């Protein structure tokens, strides 16, 4: 186990150890998070299923699901990719493997404490900022700061003249998530109250997606697709358009989450206009990656990592079309607070970013462990279960959201909306359970890869070798 390296000398720790630690932790939290999601969905479809204990009450588990996937799966998968991509792109070693291992260790410990307390109902009562402030402090100093230091120092010590676009994103996003996290949690520390607190809650909730989850996921694709296909990135300059437009526009539209709250009208209008500008980085990103695929589209069918990656990129198209327009007043009044938003949130997290990360985790773990993937059949099972499960979820919740929106504006008694939504709640549970099943298979597949995968010879890429199962 990698725990033994926590007290070893930095030079004695094999390169990539922290990446492997982060990778398996991420998959573990993904299984936990989607399992809880499936359980929660079952409770919405069948409210009398497990009752009588607060430990299995929906209200005690919902936030655990959300934070397990955001802080556990998605952010840890980001850390996993940063630990191997940043040094590879700088033609150097990771600044400190030991810091990386401690980072992964403290991350697991801090997240476990935080989620346990949340499950017990010990919460700050602020959506996405639910973790109480002592845990926030652990997260900042044990999770974000070491990650940032490792990434920045690796970039600063690079042995290349320029900085590749992926590292621009990594370096900037770890900085921005620190600022966003510290500012977003500050109402609890400084007792900022009222609309200020409400607004800062969603300032954090928006920016954690806009400045962390979606840009880092996109940055990962800038690495994996050229690496897998062997094609150079179509245009590094378009990549920079993507990067700088995210920094300039997408740090501003937070208040579009509170279009119906009594915030200043100028702020809502400003946020709405800035929100539409997401289409600039979105088009730049999708076009850049799809053009990079030129001549290698057969890999979309034949290669499992490319399959995951390109699916994620394609899902970015509906994601940003929805995201750009649903926050304008004309559309927001219809769908605000409905299942449409739930579907959109899962399109961002379970669709676009998760697919890109799964590809990077598959690719990275095989490269670092120098082992070929144990089973292609299981990987394909994983792909189709996550994709079909996600699609069932996304489509059913979108329909449910449209029903809810119609019910809202035509003043339908709410209980009739609940009855109309029931079939879609069952579909949502089926979809979520398929994703969970796929992830269980993935954990097994990855574990078997580490134990029994064919050894990849030096100088070769795992994806160049033939599968044996």
């Amino acid at each position, binding site marked *: 186990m990698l725990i033994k390296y926590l007290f070893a000398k930095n030079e004695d720790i094999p390169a990539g150890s922290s990446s492997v630690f982060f990778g398996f932790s991420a998959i573990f939290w993904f299984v936990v998070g989607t399992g809880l999601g499936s359980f929660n969905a079952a409770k919405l*479809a069948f*409210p009398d299923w497990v*009752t*009588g204990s*607060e430990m299995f*009450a929906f*209200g005690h588990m*919902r*936030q655990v699901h959300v934070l397990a996937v955001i802080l556990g799966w998605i952010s840890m998968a980001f850390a996993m990719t940063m630990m191997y991509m940043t040094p590879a792109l700088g033609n150097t070693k990771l600044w400190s493997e030991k810091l990386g291992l401690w980072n992964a260790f403290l991350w697991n410990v801090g997240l476990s404490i935080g989620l346990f307390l949340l499950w017990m109902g*010990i*919460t*700050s*009562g*602020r*959506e996405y900022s639910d973790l*109480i402030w002592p845990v926030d402090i652990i997260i900042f100093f044990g999770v974000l700061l070491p990650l940032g230091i490792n990434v920045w120092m690796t970039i*600063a010590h690079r042995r290349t*003249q*320029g*900085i590749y676009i992926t590292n621009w994103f990594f370096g900037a996003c770890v900085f*921005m998530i620190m*600022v966003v996290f510290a*500012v977003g949690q500050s*109402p609890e520390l400084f*007792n*900022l*109250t*009222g*609309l200020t*607190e*409400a*607004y*800062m809650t969603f*300032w954090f909730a928006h920016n954690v997606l806009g400045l962390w989850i979606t840009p880092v996921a996109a940055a990962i694709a800038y690495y994996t697709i050229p690496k897998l296909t062997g094609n150079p990135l179509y245009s590094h300059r378009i990549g920079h358009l993507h990067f700088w437009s995210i*920094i*300039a526009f997408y*740090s*501003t539209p*937070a*208040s579009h*989450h509170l279009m*119906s*709250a*009594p*915030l200043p009208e100028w*702020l809502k209008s*400003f*946020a709405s206009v800035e929100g539409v500008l997401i289409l600039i980085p979105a088009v730049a990103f999708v076009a850049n990656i799809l053009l990079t695929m030129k001549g290698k589209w057969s890999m979309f069918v034949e290669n499992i990592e490319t399959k995951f990656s390109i699916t994620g990129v394609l899902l970015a198209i509906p994601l940003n079309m929805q995201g750009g327009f649903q926050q304008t007043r004309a559309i927001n*009044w219809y769908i*605000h*607070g*409905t*299942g449409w*938003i739930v579907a959109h949130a899962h399109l961002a997290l379970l669709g676009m970013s998760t697919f890109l990360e799964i590809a990077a985790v598959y690719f990275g773990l095989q490269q670092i462990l120098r082992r070929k993937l144990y089973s292609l059949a299981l990987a394909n099972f994983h792909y189709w279960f996550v994709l079909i499960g996600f699609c069932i979820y996304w489509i059913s919740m979108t329909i449910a959201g449209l029903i*809810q929106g119609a019910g809202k504006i035509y*003043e339908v008694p*709410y209980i009739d909306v*609940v009855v109309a939504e*029931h079939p879609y*709640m069952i579909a949502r549970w089926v979809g979520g359970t398929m994703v969970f099943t796929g992830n269980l298979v993935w954990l097994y597949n990855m574990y078997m890869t580490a134990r029994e995968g064919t050894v990849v010879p030096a100088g070769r890429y795992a994806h160049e070798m033939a599968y044996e199962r």
Partner: protein
Amino acid sequence: MSFQQHKLGAAAIGGMLGISMCITLMFPSFDFRSAESTWVGLDKNLSNGRVIGFSYEDPLVIGANKPITVILDKDPKTGEKIDPPMRAYVYEPGVPFAPAVRHPANTGPTVSQLSLNVGRMGEASEAEGAVFGINRGEVNGKDWDYIENLTALKGWTPADTLRAATDENTRYVGKGKTVYITEGCWWCHTLLPEQTQDWQVFGAPPMLGDFNGEMPTAFGSDRKAPDILHVASRNSSREWMDMHFFNPRLVQPNSIMPRFDYLWGETDAHGNKIDFDKWRTEYKEYRAGIRIYPPEIPEYAGDSEVRALVDWILTSLK
């Protein structure tokens, strides 16, 4: 290498993020600061106490050290009749005051001046406890609600005030809001009727000054259930609320709300152990058509969580 991209890049990123934070954080704060608190804002503040959710005074988030709201129909000191009955917010010794009292600027420039100069709010002490009320006063021809310190103005002590109110008129609002937060009611219910047709069903949307000093605001973002900001105006039956919390299917067969029977705790109002298994068996028989009526729900104890929750709903969500 003389030219270091990352140095120029770091400066550019910092500058752009700084401008963005000026626009999205600093400028709105000027608007928020000038907002004058409404009666709703003052009432929520005084009845919730300092913070709902994790805090020094309530680390396990069970609603400890929260103020108690009472509805008084007679003066606790003189015994004179008060008509119509008034709300008073009782802070027993040691209970931290609400943000509106600790940081008067939270309530807006005019309201805070009225509270301090006319309401003598600044004289209250946490160590000795205090009783607050809300009154209405005029400044420059306009009416404003402000906080008054009834301990200083009328000599009401927390103990006397609690004694003057009957159990029925004692509302554990702060504890009830805590239960609302910890049980995650706000994952499905919102406290924010939208500024669209929504308000015709769920009531008026909140005003600018309705949130001053509130923490957390817990609007809710995902509405899987009706908005409940004004639910007590639509339905003020305590009996209906009790049945609905114990098992929502008793009053609304198609509801998907979870059962909150565990909020009753171990024992009922008479100190007897609640037999949940028996209730469930009888309820199953009722659903199967073997019984004609569903089983009676237990009477909850005075210090149970569900009592506080229903208190909060019927007192605050009007």
